[in-house]
């Protein structure tokens, strides 16, 4: 098993308390950064580490940090995006509920690097119990002198607040998150200006995912170069993968980036293969919004190379034969899964979660869901299959925020790789609408 940088002590009894966490080497990065490093040196380490945003987009964190505008006399903010709500992704919840101090430690070190004096953790409204855990941990950190005025006598002060959302997926989009944090309706903003220039309260702001901020801790502790030794190519370090679906051992795995997908699914070290001895049909590799891939394409790229759990390898082949690492929500589906029903289900989610601000997404997500509902229930026509592809294309790229794309990609990919299943629903409506029915014939590869 590879090295664990984040979750090494996750199963230690009482690790959610300050004392136990500290005993296991916690808050070393804060001491190191505040006492021996300048803020710019911390940013430099993060740059060297090659850490990429763990929330889904995979943007290099160090670069994002260096884009932060730093006008004189204007406060800056670090905001942690803990609004994890992508279907299939549940890594941040676990990380925060088990290791709240790891996130807080990362927030302190990160805020120091960015020169933020007030930082926020914006947490998904449904995770109320995690909010309580975090609040308790923050109170402990204040009591121990790691938060508040003049931390460790370094002259650096930081206030950390946790703010719960009201349960909207869209508030995981960084500008909608900032709107919501300001107390407004969670609508994404038009960009530019980007948050690095005008973010929270129109001040320069960095928004990072929970796991990204947590990863700053080992990077500062061990140095960026050490961190970059893990992983493959531009995918450095470790990544939490939340594996779910028809697996023998679903759960959250911290993997070193570069593990072959085949090993991840089948080895006993990780997911232990497909449950009930069934065959794998398809995988959604990075949360519900990334393109679904059939077994043949998820295990090997179109060129016949082994697919690895890295940003590059998973996106090999673009959206024609590839997908994305995304947020690491790994959903495996066995041969009894109906892809049409699954696509309809995803589509229903995006329809429900569209903020309704811009027209292609507001109207298009509803349209997709309705046509997919028709197809799934045996009332569709062959024409409907082309229709959903066309509607998805009309949404993609024409919206304010990426939710439009998130809604369009899974539909387009499902038709691209599993068109025969959609056609089967049209030609055999009776069979296809029977309870638990799924296409079992030979896959037809695009």
């Amino acid at each position, binding site marked *: 098993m590879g090295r664990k940088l984040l979750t090494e002590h996750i199963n230690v009894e009482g690790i959610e308390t300050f004392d136990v966490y500290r005993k296991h080497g916690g808050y070393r990065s804060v001491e190191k950064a505040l006492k021996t490093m300048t803020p710019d040196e911390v940013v430099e380490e993060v740059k060297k580490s090659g850490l990429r945003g763990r929330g889904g987009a995979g943007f290099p964190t160090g670069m994002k940090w260096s884009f932060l505008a730093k006008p004189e006399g204007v406060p800056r903010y670090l905001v942690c995006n803990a609004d994890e709500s992508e279907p299939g992704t549940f890594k941040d919840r676990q990380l925060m509920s088990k290791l709240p101090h790891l996130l807080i430690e990362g927030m302190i070190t990160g805020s120091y690097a960015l020169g933020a004096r007030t930082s926020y953790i914006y947490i998904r409204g449904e995770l109320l119990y995690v909010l309580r855990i975090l609040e308790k941990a923050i109170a402990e950190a204040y009591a121990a002198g790691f938060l508040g005025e003049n931390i460790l006598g370094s002259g650096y002060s930081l206030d950390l607040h946790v703010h719960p959302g009201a349960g909207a997926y869209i508030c995981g989009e960084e500008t909608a998150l900032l709107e919501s944090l300001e107390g407004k309706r969670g609508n994404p903003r*038009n960009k530019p200006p980007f948050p690095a220039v005008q973010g929270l309260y129109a001040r320069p702001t960095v928004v990072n995912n929970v796991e990204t901020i947590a990863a700053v801790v080992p990077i500062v502790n061990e140095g960026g170069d050490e961190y970059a030794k893990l992983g493959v190519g531009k995918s450095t370090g470790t990544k939490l993968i939340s594996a779910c679906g028809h697996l023998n051992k679903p759960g959250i795995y911290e993997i070193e980036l570069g593990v072959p997908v085949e090993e991840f699914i089948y080895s006993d070290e990780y997911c232990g293969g497909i449950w009930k001895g069934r065959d794998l049909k398809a995988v959604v590799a990075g949360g519900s919004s990334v393109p679904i891939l059939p077994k043949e394409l998820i295990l090997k790229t179109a060129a016949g190379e082994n697919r690895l759990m890295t940003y590059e390898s998973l996106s090999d082949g673009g959206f024609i034969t590839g997908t994305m690492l995304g947020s690491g929500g790994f959903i495996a589906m066995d041969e009894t899964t109906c892809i049409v029903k699954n696509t309809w289900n995803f589509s229903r989610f995006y329809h*429900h979660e569209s903020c309704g601000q*811009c027209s292609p997404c507001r109207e298009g997500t509803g349209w997709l869901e309705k046509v997919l509902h028709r197809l799934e229930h045996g009332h569709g026509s062959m024409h409907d299959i082309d229709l959903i592809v066309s509607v998805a294309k009309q949404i993609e790229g*024409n919206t304010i925020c990426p939710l439009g794309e998130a809604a369009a990609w899974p539909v387009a990919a499902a038709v691209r790789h599993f068109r025969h299943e959609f056609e089967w629903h049209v030609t055999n409506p009776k069979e296809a609408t029977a309870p638990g029915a799924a296409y079992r014939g030979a896959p037809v590869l695009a």
Partner: protein
Amino acid sequence: MAKITFDGIEVEVPDGTTILNAARQIGGGVVPPAMCYYTPLKGTGGKCRACLVRVAAGSAKDPRPMPKLVASCITTVQDGMVVENTTSQQVMDVRKGIVEMLLINHPLDCPVCDQAGECDLQDFAFEHGVSTTRYEEERRTFEKIDIGPLIQLHMTRCILCYRCVYTADQLTPERVHGVLGRGDASEIGTYIENIIDNEFSGNVIDVCPVGALTDKTFRFKQRVWFTKPVNAHRDCENEKCCGKVTLWYKGKDVLRVTARKDQYGEVKEWICNTCRFDKKETSDWVLEGPAHINRASVISANHYELPVINPQVLADLPESTTRELERNPPLRLGGING
């Protein structure tokens, strides 16, 4: 100043101008349509996506094209930018898609809608849409709501441009309506039925691009193209009110009063509710003469003029563009006028 090339036409505009406003400097058929952007209201734009254009070159410094189509109403120009609107097939296709999206939940009840004839959505669909629909599902509907004695809200027609929300924010001391709900279930509302009651509330009727907010004193009185617009003014006691209006006559009766709109349907100066709803006698007003309506819709039937491209600009046009304009006049009025 920044020099940009828009559909092959060069125009120089001050820094910070949006692409849309730069195109409006050129005028004519190259101007992208705008359903949510409204110049006098700060913060509007970016929502309807009707004005998406392709930026073929970002700037003189960085001539790479922008990866996605951008909303021209909120994207500012850079020196050396090259923008394609009507000259890009991609933009035209996407715009057709936007019309389709805006119409799938629109009731298309133009025959009984008061806005018909001066409706932005009608014009937009007429110019860029297709005559058939691929949408077979049930449309979203809402009950009509009376928000006060003067304005009626018919959410079913709304395209959620947010203009009325910005109007209430920026013109009136307290906004009592906003967008409730999410996605295609979102609606303009007052949450608990409430009356929008202040001296400038009537302006939400003027900014509404469709027939979602209508003047209750005018509803079903007359089709707008049968009324005669006349500009008039009065010395309004409300100092925030400009007192400059358009009166809409049928015979000798003033059927309604609106603020004056420019060729893009934008109100430049706001009027108060007293002028709009209470002063409906000719004796209340000093008449200035017939209002010139130079918008595309049937409201200007019989005295409609093709949009004129700034002659100075026209002279500088490359020959290929002039030829293209001759072959494809910017606005096709075939069915009605031509």
